[in-house]
C-alpha cells in the first residue's frame, strides 16, 4: 500500500520539485502570492474602498448612502472651520505626545541601556513593557480617576497651591503620552545599547565634555531611533478617539468626528478618515529622510 503510493507519488512530486528548482521566479511567485493578495486585497483594498466611499453622499433623512459621485465631502472638509480646527488640533496633539514621549524616554532609555548593571537590564526592559500587558481601557480609566476632581493629581499638587489639569486637552495629551511611552523607549534603548563604548572614550580623549559628546556623538547616532519611535507615537495618537472621550472632557479629535459621523453620514466619515492616512504618509516621508525607517 505505502510502496504503491510512493511509487505513484514519486514521479510527479519529483517533477514538481525539479521544475521549482529550475525556475526560481515561479518558486518566488508561488510563495508570495498569498501574502501579497492579503496585502493588496484586504489592506490596500479597504483603504481604496474608504477613499472611494468618501465621494458618495447620504440621503439627509434616512441617512442611506447614495452612490452618486460628488466631491462635496472634501469641499466641506476644507471649508468648514470646525473640521480644520479639529484636524489641526489632532496633529498638534500627536506632535505634543511625540515630543513628550521623546523627552521622557531618552533619560529612561539611557539609564536602562548604559547606567544600570547589565544583569538588571533585561528586567528593566520587561518593567517598561509591563504596562502594555494591561488593557488599554483600564489604563485610561485609571487616568480618569487620577485626574478627576479631588483625585491623585489634585491631592499631590495641593501642597504647592496648584490643582490638577482636570479633564481636557492637557489630560488627553498626558494619558496618551503614558500609553505610548514604551514604544518610544524601546527603540532608543536598543540604539543606546549598541552605541560602542570606544566612541565615547575617543570623544573624551579628544577633550570633549559630556555635553559635547552627547551633542556630537550620542544624539546623531540615536536620532534615527527617536524618529522610528515617533512613527509609533505619532500615528497611534493621531488615530486615537477613546482616550480623549474618557479624559478629554469635551475635546474632539479626528477620530471622534469619524465616530460621530459613521452612523449617519458614512461618506463624510470616510472623507475624515482619509485625513490621518494622508498626514501619516507625509510624516513617514519626512521620517524616511532621517533614516528612521531602516532602524525600525
Amino acid at each position: 500500500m505505502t510502496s504503491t503510493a510512493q511509487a505513484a507519488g514519486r514521479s510527479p512530486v519529483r517533477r514538481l520539485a525539479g521544475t521549482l528548482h529550475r525556475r526560481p521566479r515561479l518558486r518566488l511567485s508561488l510563495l508570495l502570492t498569498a501574502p501579497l493578495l492579503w496585502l493588496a486585497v484586504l489592506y490596500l483594498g479597504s483603504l481604496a474602498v474608504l477613499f472611494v466611499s468618501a465621494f458618495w453622499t447620504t440621503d439627509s433623512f434616512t441617512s442611506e448612502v447614495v452612490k452618486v459621485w460628488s466631491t462635496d465631502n472634501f469641499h466641506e472638509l476644507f471649508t468648514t472651520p470646525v473640521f480644520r480646527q479639529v484636524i489641526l488640533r489632532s496633529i498638534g496633539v500627536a506632535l505634543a505626545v511625540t515630543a513628550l514621549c521623546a523627552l521622557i524616554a531618552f533619560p529612561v532609555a539611557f539609564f536602562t541601556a548604559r547606567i544600570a548593571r547589565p544583569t538588571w537590564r533585561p528586567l528593566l526592559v520587561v518593567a517598561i513593557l509591563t504596562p502594555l500587558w494591561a488593557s488599554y481601557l483600564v489604563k485610561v480609566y485609571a487616568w480618569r480617576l487620577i485626574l478627576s476632581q479631588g483625585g491623585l493629581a489634585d491631592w499631590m499638587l495641593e501642597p504647592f497651591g496648584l490643582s490638577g489639569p482636570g479633564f481636557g486637552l492637557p489630560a488627553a495629551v498626558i494619558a496618551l503620552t503614558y500609553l505610548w511611552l514604551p514604544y518610544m523607549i524601546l527603540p532608543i534603548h536598543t540604539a543606546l545599547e549598541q552605541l560602542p563604548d570606544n566612541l565615547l572614550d575617543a570623544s573624551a580623549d579628544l577633550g570633549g565634555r559630556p555635553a559635547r559628546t552627547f551633542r556630537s556623538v550620542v544624539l546623531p547616532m540615536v536620532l534615527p531611533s527617536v524618529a522610528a519611535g515617533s512613527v509609533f507615537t505619532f500615528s497611534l495618537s493621531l488615530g486615537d478617539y477613546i482616550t480623549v472621550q474618557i479624559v478629554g472632557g469635551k475635546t474632539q479629535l479626528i477620530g471622534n468626528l469619524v465616530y460621530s459621523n459613521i452612523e449617519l453620514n458614512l461618506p463624510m466619515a470616510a472623507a475624515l478618515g482619509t485625513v490621518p492616512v494622508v498626514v501619516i504618509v507625509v510624516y513617514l516621508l519626512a521620517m524616511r529622510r532621517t533614516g528612521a525607517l531602516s532602524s525600525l
Partner: protein
Amino acid sequence: MRLTRTLPAAAAVAVLLAATACGSSDSGGSSSSTGLNPPDLKAQSKLGKTEGQVNLIAWAGYVEDGSNDPKVDWVSDFEKQTGCQVNSKVAASSDEMVKLMKTGQYDAVSASGDASLRLIASGDAAPVNTGLVPNYKNVFSGLKNGGWNSVDGQMYGIPHGRGANLLMYNTEKVTPAPTSWSAVFDDAAAHKGHVTAYDSPIYIADAALYLKSARPELKIKDPYALDQKQFDAAVDLLKKQSANVGEYWSDYLKEISAFKSGDSVIGTTWQVIANLTQDEGAKVKAFVPKEGSTGWSDTWMLSAKAKHPNCAYKWMDWIISPKVNAQVAEYFGEAPANTEACAETSDKSFCDTFHAADEGYWKNIAFWNTPIEQCLDGRTDVKCVPYAKWVQAWTEIKG
C-alpha cells in the same frame, strides 16, 4: 402562514428596488427628504407558528436574561413559554439602532422617537397590527398614535415606556437649588467647567425648549420643529453653554462617576442615572424644571425584513404584559406603558414617582422626535432644519 411571511418579504424587495432606483436617478432631492411618505407596507394580519428565535436591538436594561444580575430576568420565562430563543444586541444610541436595523438581521428594535420616524420613512420598520398584541389595549392612551410612533393612525410599533430628561444638580455645590433650565444655559457660568450635557444632536431640542419660554419672540412651538432662525438661536445658546461645559456624557457610567467625583455638578440626566448616583452616595437631586423638559418614549418596532416576525410579535406582547412591563420599568427607571403594570411593581409608589398615569405631567414633556424639513408643528410657510443639519451643528457646537 407561508403567505404572511412572503408578503412583507415582497414588500421589502419592492422597497429595495425603489431605493436603488432612487439612488441611480441622480435627481438630488429624493422624495423622502421632503416629508414623511413611508413605503406602502402591509401589517401582518394573523400570527403564524413561532420561528424558534428572535433577534432584538435594545437599549441597555431592556432585554435582561439574568446574565447581568441573576434577579433581573424576564427573558427566560418568555423563552420557555414561546419557544423563541432571544438574541439581543445592546445599542448605545439611536443612530446605532438605525444603522443596525438597516442590516436586516434584526426582527425588532426598542426605538426612541429620534430614530422611529427615520425607520418608518426608510421602510426599515413595518406597520404593526395592534390586534395581534392583546396587551396593547391597556397601553396608556397618551402613548398611542403619537407623532413619533404612528403615521396617519397606523401604529408602527408597540409603546414600551417613557421618561423625562431631568436636570440633576449637586445639592452641596449648587445653591440655591435651581428651578429653571437657565441654570445650565444663561446662568451656566456660575459653574464653569462643571456643567454637563447629553452628547447627542438631539440635545439641541433642550436648548430650543428653554428658548421657547426664555425668548418668546422666537415663537418656538415644538423644539423638534425649528426653522433656520430658531435653530440658529438654539445653536448660539449651546455654543455659549459649551464654554462652561466640563464634559458631555453619552455613557451613563461616565456621568455617574463625574457627579460622584464633583467633575460635573449640574446637567441633564435620566431618572435611572439619578437613582444610581444617589445609591452610590453622591448628594444629588433631579427634577423637571419649570419650563418642562424633553423626554423619550420608546417603541418596539418590527423590522420590515424580519425573519422571525411571529416571535417578534410574541415579544412585543410579552414586554408590555403587566408583570414584565413593571419589571423592566423599575429596572430601567421609566414610566411603564401598560396601565396594569402599576399594580405589579415591587415599590407600590413607583408609578407615582415616575408619573406613569399623570397625563398632565407628560403634557410638559416634549418627546424626542426626528426633525424633518416639513415642520412637525404644522407650519407650512417655512422649512424646518432637518436632522442631518442638527448633526453637523452638534459637531460645531462641541468645536
